[in-house]
Every structure is written in C-alpha cells, then in structure tokens.
C-alpha cells in the first residue's frame, strides 16, 4: 500500500465520504471519485493531470453536507486558494492534501486555506511551452495579422463550453452566456459571438486566473484559449499588484484600484 492509498483509506475510515483524486484513464490520469477503502488502490497521483479537481468542489450535487477530501495538485491548490478568497469554499467540509514535491510520495494535509496560501508563496507559476511558442508567433504579427489569427481560431469554436466547465473559477450560477435580457453574447457559434465569449472569459479572469491550463486542454477543437488569460495574468501582475498563481486578498484586480494606477491612453 503506498502512502496515498494509506492516506485515502484512513480518511475514508475516519468519516470522509469521498476522496476526489485521479485514476488511470485512456488519456492519462482522469478524475476519480473514491467512495470506499476498496477503491483506494485505484488512486494515482499525477501532478500533470489536466483536470482541475477544484471544479468539482463547487458542484452542489457532489458536495452535500458530508466531508470530502481532495488529493490536490499544485494547480488544484491554486484554484482552491483563489476560490476561498471569493467566498466559495466551505472549509468545514473540505480536507485538502497533496503529495509533496520531494518525490518520496509523502502526503501533506493542509490545516486550512491559510496554510495552502503560504504553501503556494514560493511556487512559481510557469508558462506552458505552447503559450511561449504562441507568444513568439504573435509577437511577430502585425495588428491585422493578429486579428485574423484570432478570428480564425475563434471561428472553429463550437460553443460546447468545455472551457467554462473545466475551469475551476467559472462557477457562476448563471453564466453571462445564458443571460438573454439583453443577449450579451450570441448564443450560436459564430466567429464574433465566440470571440465575445472568450473576451468575457478573459476579462472575468483578470487577476483571478490561476493559470492551470484546464480550459486549453478541455477545448475539443484545440483553440489555445488559455493563452489569453495566462498572458493577461503575467502582463498585468505588476500593474495590479498580484502574484500569478496566488490568491489576492480583499477583492481582485478589477474590483479594487489604486488611485495611482498608471495608464498612458486616457487623455
């Protein structure tokens, strides 16, 4: 029995009803809902797993009054920290643990959100290779070329909202896309409606995106949507005073301000 399985079994035996973790799937690690100690042997830990388990923490049909434990990757931890700052986490029913980076499979259980926050302080948020390449490609483009690049990318979108569903921070009870008075975003898949949807997503993510890349990985047609939020996250961090990958306290970038905020375009 490895340390992860041991931990899972002991949690399940001590009153935890569900452990959110990963199991082996057809395309690498996939989310796994472990309800019984017998199933605990199926649990695997994969820090590269693309599904952010924090997404499930917000689902009322999964999260009742029972205690739930999450086997969290760094990405999941980041999401949980951000969600906590947005009043979305019921700490009393949630146990969060991770497998430490040292490599011997040690399990670390967090005492609470504060400890998660401090655990994250020295964990730098890296930029994915795909995004770096895209950065390079786009930096060589004229404005018109960028525009036609993104129009083409977005025209492939089928509005399946897998990006929204996979994102741990897209938790609105009613998404803006479902608002029809007024119809802010064309509900049918069309290049402009798709683009408006993504612009909204990025604007809604300003200072909130935790850069987990779940949206890009979820997109069935392969649009690198996460690039936009990720780039904004880095580009605006200094300006708005947050550290990418760490939760902001007391509001987020667009709900707060500094009187001395700098811009060079308002005349």
């Amino acid at each position: 029995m490895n340390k992860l399985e041991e931990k899972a079994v002991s949690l399940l035996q001590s009153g935890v009803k569900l452990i959110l973790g990963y199991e082996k799937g057809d395309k690498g690690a996939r989310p796994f809902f472990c309800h019984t100690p017998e199933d605990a042997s199926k649990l695997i830990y994969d820090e590269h797993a693309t599904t952010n388990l924090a997404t499930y923490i917000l689902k009322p049909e999964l999260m009742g009054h029972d205690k739930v434990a999450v086997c969290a990757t760094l990405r999941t931890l980041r999401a949980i920290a951000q969600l906590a700052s947005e009043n979305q986490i019921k700490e009393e029913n949630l146990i969060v643990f991770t497998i430490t980076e040292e490599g011997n499979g040690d399990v670390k259980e967090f005492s609470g959100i504060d400890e998660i926050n401090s655990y994250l302080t020295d964990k730098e948020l890296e930029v994915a290779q795909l995004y770096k390449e895209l950065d390079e490609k786009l930096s060589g483009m004229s404005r018109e070329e960028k525009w036609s690049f993104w129009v083409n990318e977005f025209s492939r979108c089928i509005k399946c909202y897998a990006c929204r569903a996979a994102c741990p921070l897209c938790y609105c009870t009613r998404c803006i896309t479902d608002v029809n008075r007024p119809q802010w975003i064309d509900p049918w898949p069309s290049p402009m409606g798709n683009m408006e949807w993504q612009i909204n997503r990025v604007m809604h993510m300003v200072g909130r995106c935790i850069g987990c890349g779940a949206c890009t990985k979820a997109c069935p047609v392969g649009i690198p949507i996460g690039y936009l939020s990720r780039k904004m996250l880095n580009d605006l961090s200094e300006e708005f005073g947050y550290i990418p990958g760490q939760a902001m306290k007391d509001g987020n970038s667009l709900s707060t301000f500094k009187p001395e905020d700098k811009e060079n375009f308002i005349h």
Partner: protein
Amino acid sequence: MEKRYINKEGLAKWFGSILNSGKRVYAPVRHGEKVDFHQVHSLEDVAEDYIQTTLSAKSVIFPRAEVLFSYKKDNKEVTLEDFNPDSVPETVIWKIRPCDAAGFIPLSDIFNGGYDDVVYAAHLNKTTLVSFSCAKADDFCFCTSVNGSPGATKGSDIQLTILPDGGAIVEIITDKGMALIKSAEDCFEPAKDEDKAKYLADVPVYFDLNTVHDKLKEAFSSDIWKQQSERCLGCGACAFVCPTCACFSIEENSKGSHGQRIRCWDSCGFSMFTQHTSGHNPRSTQSQRWRQRILHKFSYMPERINDFGCTGCGRCSRACPVDMNIREHLTSIVK
C-alpha cells in the same frame, strides 16, 4: 449495387472535375493536430493519415448556426425574408467515414420524420456523400458494436476503398452517387475482382447492442448513471462532435429594427437545456442528463425511429475533457 475501379490518376481527375463543376466540396483538412471538414479547392487540401475528424461532417447538412428567416421593420411594416432552399449550393462531402455517413440516417429520421424540415432537407437533397472505408481505427472506434463496420455503406452515396496502388474500389450506392460518377464517366474503369474486406481496419466488437437495449429498459432508476457521470463536467463537447446529436435551440439575432431567427446546436448535457421559466428543472443533476443522453441514443431512438443514435465513431470519447468513454460505459451496462 454497381461497382467500378478508379486508378490514382482517375481519382485525381474525377475530384478535379467535381471541383470544376461548381459544387462545393467539403473534405477533411488538417489544422495543427486537428483534422476537420472544410471547403477545399484542390486535392492537396485534403488531409491524409488521421483516424477521425474532431467534428463529424454533420455541420455541412445541419450547420452549427443557420438563419431560418430574416425580418425588417420599416415604418411599422414588417417584411419577412424566409429561408430559400435554392440558396443552398450543390455540395459533395469527400472522404467522409462510413460511421459519419451512417449518422445522417438517424439525423434525417429526426428532422424529416413525418414531414420534411425544409431547411435540413434542402441541405440533404443537395449533398452527395462520398465515403472512404476505414483502413485504420483506434481504441475509441467501436462501429462494429453498433451495427456498423469500417466498410459499411449505409448512408453513403458512393464509397471508395483505397487500394495499395492508389486506386480505389468504387461502390455506387444511390442514384445521387451514380450521377456524380456519370459526370466524369471516363475516369472510371470496370470493377476488378478485389476483396474489399482485405483493406478494412479490424474493429473488435465490445458489447452486444441488443443486450444494451434490453438492459436499458430496466435501468432508469439505476445507480449506474450517478456512478458513470460523477466526473462529467456538463459541457456540450460530446453532443457537438456527435454525428447524430440533433438538439438545437432557436435564437433571435435582434438589432432593433431588423433581425434574424437562428437555429443553432444545443446539448441535453447543459444544465440550462431543460430549465423552465418557473425555476424548475426536470433534469436538475448531471446524472439525469447523462442518463438522458444514453437512453435517448440506445433506448428511445430505436423505439421511435428504429435506429440507434450512435454509429460508434468514438468522437465523444476522444473529445471528452474528463475521459468519459462511452464504449467503456456501454460495456459496463451490459455487464
């Protein structure tokens, strides 16, 4: 069914003649790692070496979004511009997979069952499907478990089976198919004595479809739906890539004095799909929506239109962000 043979040069010439005839031609086109149907203008545009397109060819006949009619208000007078079936150009879908072509059978049963959906029928009637039998398959393919096969001709107008010499066995299934052959008769040679089965991929049978159908009759209240759908995120990827999913929504593109009524894809997997104005949602949980998806395809459709709503293309499993594998779930239902 008539058969012909076409050699490599003939194939290119025939394809060229189709393009020159002014028909729109849709074929798989590579975009990075993904291959999907797009309009093509030469044979070089057509992708090689892939198992399956991400999306089915459904959108050629049932577009992602389509204007049903437009309206204009002027000086309190309203003028309507209805959908014009003549505006749909003659179209050829080239290199469609047999499972995709088969998908149009249940789709047509839904749209044209009882009466013809004018918009859908206009596209269908103007479209000729040239399928290519499958020489390769992957672990997600399971056509043989749902009454299909890598060389099934159901739904196709013409089917080609590519031979090692670059030529192909040509099977002409419908009159529409024959018309497309006749337009370039000289490209073809008489059929050779070739065993098509030799060139087809081997797709194992994973489960017995009739057992699935029988088991589902009793399964409405089963716990299996919750177990299977626990990790489902509730996105619409599976429905949108599916060749038989027909759910749509009617939307209004209003600009005040003018606008359009638009039909676009929707998915029973979305929580808002069944949301009532009252606030009540008859399918309020994801497990209920997952159950609907499976029951609809494997229980209700066979009963209502005598056809299953699945052709075993495996797209939903490939597209699912959380690796919900329909083949795996159907197999577990049988067990």
